[in-house]
């Protein structure tokens, strides 16, 4: 199939995703990732620490009660699965490992900042661009301003690290 030989035009890909997202919005809710990842964090913590310890942290009883019956988890897992299938079919699956220590450090700090940011704002980049802003939510506009400012600062740091 041609799809697995050539790179797809991102405009076509994103237009299809947008149409599917409208459909999802009608049946359950707009595309989001942060919520599912929070639930996954809760499930992992429940497995590692045990249900009793987790129950002592108010967040996991008042805001998110860990459960597998939460649709947003399956969007995240689906993305990994879909990408795996696409990568295997197009012979692009291979192990890629960051080589330099600086990369590992940047990824670690970046990952932590993303997690803290998601929790603080109750939204992630996906719900910002593909949920809240198209719903014309004021929170979406605040979030877009935040992510653009953050990406600018991040790019500045990234550039400094690349030059160093």
């Amino acid at each position, binding site marked *: 199939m041609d799809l697995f030989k050539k790179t797809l035009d991102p*405009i076509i890909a994103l237009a299809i995703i*947008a149409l599917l997202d409208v459909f999802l919005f009608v049946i359950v809710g707009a595309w989001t990732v942060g919520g599912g990842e929070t639930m996954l964090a809760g499930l992992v913590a429940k497995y590692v620490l045990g249900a009793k310890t987790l129950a002592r942290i108010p967040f996991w009883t008042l805001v998110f009660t860990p459960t597998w019956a939460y649709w947003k988890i399956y969007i995240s*897992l689906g993305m990994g699965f879909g990408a795996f299938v696409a990568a295997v079919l197009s012979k692009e699956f291979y192990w*890629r490992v*960051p080589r330099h220590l600086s990369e590992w450090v940047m990824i670690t700090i970046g990952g932590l900042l993303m997690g803290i940011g998601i929790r603080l704002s109750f939204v992630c980049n996906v719900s910002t661009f593909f949920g809240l802003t198209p719903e014309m939510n004021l929170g979406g506009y605040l979030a877009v301003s935040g992510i653009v400012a*953050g990406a600018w600062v991040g790019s500045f740091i990234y550039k400094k690290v690349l030059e160093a």
Partner: protein
Amino acid sequence: MITVTGQCVAAFIFGSTVGLLVQRSRWCNTSALRDAMLFKNYRNTKALLVAMMILTLGFTGFISVGNGNPMRFDVGINQFIGLFLFGIGMVLAGACTVSSWVKTGEGNIGALWALLFLIIGLFVSSLLWSFTYWPPAPATMTGQPNLAALQFGFADALTLQQKTGIPAIVFGLIQFAALFGLYRLILRKERAIQTARGQVQPEAAKSSPQVDAAMPEPAIGAVMAGGAGASGSYQEEA
């Protein structure tokens, strides 16, 4: 009403399709912002804007006829602060929430590492929340402004429709026009860059609409070389 299992199945099908399309198109939210700022490359930014235009019309259209499930939570200053931190983090990690899953699916250990620390970050903030109880949990949200907690209440196309009586699609069309304006601006900028590089004559740019879509060759080459999304320096060395 759709059952919980139905919701999960629909979400998985949606997610898998997204994963496949994002992997094949090498789209990445991080590079949509970072490449535009650092390298003046708008490949991913344009796709993001097209998706947002379609979504704005789709969402506000369904809200107008009383359909759809908009997110209902209090808007607060925390959305700006949180996404500011997220923005820095995604550029440093070279992956956003989408591309970290997609790249993990492709066998990228760096992306899996980012995902692991994202989950650790989520857990750390859940501990912090348990001390501060801020921002308020969705269960306690009233939809009314609560300035002491820096929350402004619900504010979206649905509340606009309820308060003004004007269908949400009208506001949606205004936002569509704004996004389209931004898209046009990017096309004009791309053309200016191409002209400056001497790849396209200004007359040719005017007469042929196809030039709009064409990317400068070196830029697209760089995108391909970078693997999925061309984001993250660790891609190039893999």
